[in-house]
Every structure is written in C-alpha cells, then in structure tokens.
C-alpha cells in the first residue's frame, strides 16, 4: 500500500499538463485573431490595389478652333442654337487636324475614339458660358477615352495580338506620339467625385450615388432615431410587464433577424403600390431602411437604458420627481451614448444595404444628381453593384474605388460612434 501523497505533490505533477493547456488556449485565440487580420488585410489590399488607379485619369490637350460656321452659322449667338450645335464635329475636326495622315474612314473612326465623348460637352459648356470664344482657337484638356486610359495605366497588354485588344496598333502609335509631344498627362480624377453615373467609365462618378445615400440616410435618421428611442424608453421604463409587452419584445428581436430584402418587398407593396410614393426615391429608401434599422436601435437603446444604475432613478423618484422628469433629466442623458452608438451602427448598416433598395427601384440607371429626397437616385452600394456588372475594364477599378469610398464613409461613421461615446460617457 502506497503512503498517502501530499496535495502539493499531486498539484506539482499536474502543473505541466495544466500549463500546456493554458498555452494552447492562448494560441487558439491568437490564431483566430491572426486569421481575421490576414483576411481583413487581404480584403483591403485587393480593393486598394484594384481601385487606387481610378483616382487618376489621363487627359489629352487638344487645340480646338471654335468654328463659327459650324457652331453658329447665322451669327446670332442665341442659346438655343449654341446649345444644340455640333461640338462633336469640332472635336473630330481638331483630331483630323492633329493627325493629317489619317485618311481612311475606318482609321478616322478609330482616331475619334481617342478622346472621350465628354470632350464635346466640355467645349459646349465653355462656349455657352462665354460666347466670345467663338472664332478663337482654344486649348483644352479633355479626358481620354476609357480604353486609352486603361492602355496608359498598363491594364492593356501592348504585346498581345491586335485582335485580342480593344485598342488597335494605330491607336497605340497615335497615343505614343501624343505622349512624346507631352500632350497627355495624368491628373486627379475629379470627375469621379463630382459626376453622376454614366455609360462611359471616364465620365462616371459616384457623387450621384453619394447624394442619394445621403438623402436616404437623412430620412432614415430622422425617422428611426426618435421612433426607436421613444419605443425603447416606453418599453423599458413605462410599459407594464405582461404578455402583450413580452410579445412585442419577442417580435422586435425577431425583426432584427429578418432578411433585409423582405423589408424591400414590404416597402414595394406598402409605400409604392399602396401609398403611391415615387419609385427610386430616397424617401422610400429611407422608409424601408427605417423599418430595417428600428430593431437595432430599439435593442441598443434598451440595453443602454438598462445599464443606467437604478440608484439614479431611485434618487430622483425619492425626492418626488415624476417618472418623466426622472427620465428626461437623469436617465436619458446617461443612456444617450449607448443610444447614439446603436443608432450610428444602425445607420452604418443602412448605408451598406442594397438588397431592399433593389426592390424599390433604386437600382435604376440615373445620371442626374438628386437634389432632394424625392428625386430618383441610387445609393453607393447599389452603384457598386451596377458598376461591378458593367463589362468595361475601366469600371473594374471604379468599382473598387467606389468600395473604398463606401468603406471610408463606414469607418468615419464608426469612428464618430466611438467619439460620441467617449465624449458623452460619464462616470457615476
């Protein structure tokens, strides 16, 4: 019979195993975090690598003779005549002049493709603004066509067989000549940040979608914050505890898990078909996203209210404050950081949402920049979806660039949430 061993000996004997288990446990955690970071950085790297080139755009300098015979043969300088004149012809004539050796019809057509169709709009704007330009020779920088831009950015392989590329050998030769004459340069792509959508990648911008997102989010915020907070305050502070409120609570929690596209169908059926609200409008998008974010805001606000220590409520009630006074003066200010955080998280969710908006027609191709919540528009994630669907090579980088812009907005909003929380946070 062995003699009874001391506790300390048993403990010592098991220490090695215990330590190994501790180390393993810590390693699992580290591995999980490392994996997460790797995926995140992969995501960012691939998006940035794909998209950063979209922030630059190649421009070509052309010297256009604003020919009075073409633009305004009658010389009356009337806006109606000037705005309908053939500026495209001016650009074409300029190109023919720059490359006099081009003769055949086919070559000419290829030549005209060097410059974006946006060039003629730009010249038109200049002339309409200052009719004095007519008859003068002006030098303007206009964006090159998206295919040429891709060539200049190295996305098109010059060595591949001519039949496989959209840019032909002759075009490459003309571009090289322009480069040697220093008539082509890369500039910051302001069009991308100021224009609406376009079929031509070099003229497409995200501003229309950003404005649409802005109006949609404003509508969402104006509706969901007060409604959500009021509902949370009532449920948490005033509602009696009974089956009915339990039922409501269960349903709110369920709503948070409902797929967002269902809210889109609901919006289509109720807001558009029943109430006859405009299609593709931010107002409807905002309403749908309000429905979607309400559960998030209510749940976060209730959690914030729950975390206010009951001693504060008792203190106020104990000296005769009414429940509403207790709420307004003491509980709400303390719960506000949590409520704001919940709201901003809800808003960030709404900003990134596309599925319900497809249902209510915010997926349409809209060139004009919306001026209000009732104008047809699209939103950033839907714009990304639309561009990702386009065949042109230049839309690939614009898609990634748009994702970067969306991510920047999301990061800003989350940073704002953290800042607000820090700022309003008080100790008690």
């Amino acid at each position, binding site marked *: 019979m062995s003699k009874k061993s001391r506790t300390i000996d048993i403990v010592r004997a098991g220490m090695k195993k215990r330590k190994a288990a501790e180390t393993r446990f810590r390693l699992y955690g580290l591995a999980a975090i490392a994996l997460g970071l790797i995926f995140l950085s992969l995501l960012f790297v691939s998006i940035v690598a794909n998209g950063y080139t979209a922030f630059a755009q190649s421009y070509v300098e052309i010297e256009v003779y604003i020919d009075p015979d073409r633009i305004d043969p009658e010389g009356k300088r009337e806006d109606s005549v000037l705005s309908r004149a053939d500026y495209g012809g001016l650009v074409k004539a300029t190109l023919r002049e720059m490359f006099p050796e081009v003769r055949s019809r086919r070559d000419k057509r290829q030549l005209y493709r060097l410059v974006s169709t946006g060039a003629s709009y730009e010249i038109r704007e200049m002339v309409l603004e200052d009719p004095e330009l007519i008859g003068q020779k002006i030098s303007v920088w206009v964006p090159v066509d998206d295919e040429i831009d891709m060539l200049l950015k190295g996305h098109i392989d010059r060595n591949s067989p001519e039949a496989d590329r959209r840019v032909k050998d002759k075009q490459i030769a003309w571009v090289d000549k322009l480069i040697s004459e220093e008539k082509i340069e890369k500039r910051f792509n302001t069009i991308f940040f100021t224009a609406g959508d376009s079929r031509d990648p070099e003229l497409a911008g995200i501003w229309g979608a950003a404005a649409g997102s802005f109006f949609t989010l404003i509508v969402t915020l104006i509706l969901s914050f007060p409604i959500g907070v009021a509902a949370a305050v009532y449920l948490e502070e005033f509602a009696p*505890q009974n089956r009915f409120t339990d039922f409501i609570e269960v349903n709110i929690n369920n709503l948070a898990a409902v797929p967002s596209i269902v809210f889109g169908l609901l919006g289509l059926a109720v807001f558009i078909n029943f109430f006859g609200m405009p299609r593709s409008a931010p107002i409807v998008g905002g309403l749908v996203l309000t429905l979607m974010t309400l559960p998030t805001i209510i749940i976060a606000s209730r959690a914030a209210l729950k975390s206010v*220590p009951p*001693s*504060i*409520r*008792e*203190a*106020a*009630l*104990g*000296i*005769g*404050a*009414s429940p509403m*006074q207790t709420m307004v*003066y*003491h509980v709400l200010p*303390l719960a506000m950081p949590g409520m704001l955080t919940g709201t901003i998280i809800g808003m960030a969710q709404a900003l990134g949402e596309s599925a319900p908006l497809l249902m209510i027609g915010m997926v349409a191709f809209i060139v004009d920049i919306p001026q209000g919540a009732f104008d047809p528009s699209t939103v950033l994630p839907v714009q990304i979806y639309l561009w990702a669907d386009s065949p042109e090579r230049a839309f690939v980088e614009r898609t990634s660039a748009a994702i970067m812009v969306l991510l920047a907005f999301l990061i800003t909003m989350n940073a704002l949430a953290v800042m607000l929380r820090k700022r309003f946070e*008080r*100790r*008690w």
Partner: protein
Amino acid sequence: MDTIEKSKVDEIEDTGVKEPVFMPEDSATIDRENRATVGEVFVDNPRMSCRDVNVHYGENHAIHDVNLDIGCNEVIAMIGPSGCGKSTFLRCLNRMNDTIEGCKVSGSIIMDGEEINSKKIDVVPLRAQVSMVFQKPNPFPKSIYENVAFGPRIHGLANNKVELDEIVVTSLEKAGLWNEVKDRLDKPGTGLSGGQQQRLCIARTIAVGPEVILMDEPCSALDPIATARIEDLIDELRTQFTICIVTHSMQQAARVSQRTAYFHLGDLIEVGDTTKIFTNPKHQLTEDYITGRFG
C-alpha cells in the same frame, strides 16, 4: 383579506397571541407564536400612522401586519437582522415599493388624515413630502449645485435664480456641507468623498422641503468618521423634520433615535423608547438581538 381583518382585532388589543395568518410555504416553518408587537406602538398626535401593513413580493410575504405610529419631530430607528423587512417597511412610507415589480402593499398608512397607501394618491407630491435618502450615496452625475437644485427646480419651489441659489446654499448649510463645497459648486457631485456624497444626498433631499425624511441605512457605506458626522447631522435635523432611519448598527440606533422598532422576519416585534429597548427589552427576540445572541 379575512385573516387580516381577524388578526387586526388581536393586534389592537395588544394582548399577545396573534391568530395564525395564511403564509406561503417557505415562511411556514417560522414559529408564529408570541410574535405580536409589544411596547408602545401608538403615540399622541402621530405624524404617520400605519395599520395592518402587509407587503408581498409575489408569493413571498415580506411584512406581516405591522402597526406603527411615527411621532412628530422624532427620530425613529428601525433595526433588525438582514431580510427582516425594515427597509421594505420604510419604502412603504413614501410608496417607493411602487417601483418594484410584483410588490403589493396592503393596509393603511395615514398622514395628515389622508390614506397614502391608496391608488388615488399621486406619489409625486407624496414623495416631495416624504423624501428618501438611500443606502449607497447616489448623487446625480452632475455638478454639486445641480444635484441640490434639481428638487426645487422640478417642484417649482424657486421663482428665480436668486431664490434657487438661496435654497441650494441653505440646504448645503443644513447638511453641513457648505464649507467644504462652497468653492466648487460646479464640480461633479460624484467627485466628493463617500461621506460628503451622502451629505450631498441629504442636502438634495432637504432642498425639496420635505416633512418626513426616510433614511435607508445611510451610513452603511461610510467609515466611522463620516458616520459620526451624519449622525450629528441627523440630530440637528430632528428639530425640523421627522426622520425614520433604518440601520443595522444597534449602536447607531441607540445614538440617534428617540424610539426604536425591532423587526424580525417580517414582524414588528417590539417598539418603544430607545433607552427602554436597549436597557430593558420586553420581548425575548429583542433581547436576543440586542445582546448579540443572533443577528
């Protein structure tokens, strides 16, 4: 309801054995013999008089048929072991139990000829008249000034800034805090020490101008020096207010109160002059408690 009515007769006669009342299972094991209140339950010209107060937390019968008068300008201490219902009883006096889900208070509590334990009574003015100081100092996370000014402001006690300032200053003076905080009225109340915070809470209560102040173990979170200051303060405040204080320190009860009520497991066992209770308790349970045999 019937059993309560029946026991009421015995209670008022104050002759000893109470009829067994209905009890939930968990408290059925308690010996119900010899638990009727002994001592001087009634006083002349009471500020508040409680008759047959019963409190239920759901199934749990927390207070059984308590009869107690609270005299004018007296400090009445409620003592007893933990869970004896002294705090629960205190909270009946300004209906703070309303805030607890599932808490039912029956019986009658009369103040100024009015039944305050009635659904018809608005608790807001009641709590302005019968205000409460809590166990843990709970100043609002606002400035010292705002803490004291909150009550007068919501009740509309001051017509202008000057009057409000005056209320704040006098309240802080009465609470013995003025000299310590006069230079930092705009600093957060939560930045004060524990004892100062509790005195700030008392000042906040005084500022409302109540007639009865309920204190629920106001010194249990404080050190002996801060406790002594609060006790001195309670003694001073006695001239203007009626004070009900719950404490589990018998020494404190002996120091600050004129009358003492001893609670045990939901029953009011003995009430009487503090000196008599501590020197010559009539009930065996009281004697056991104050001599330290249990509790």
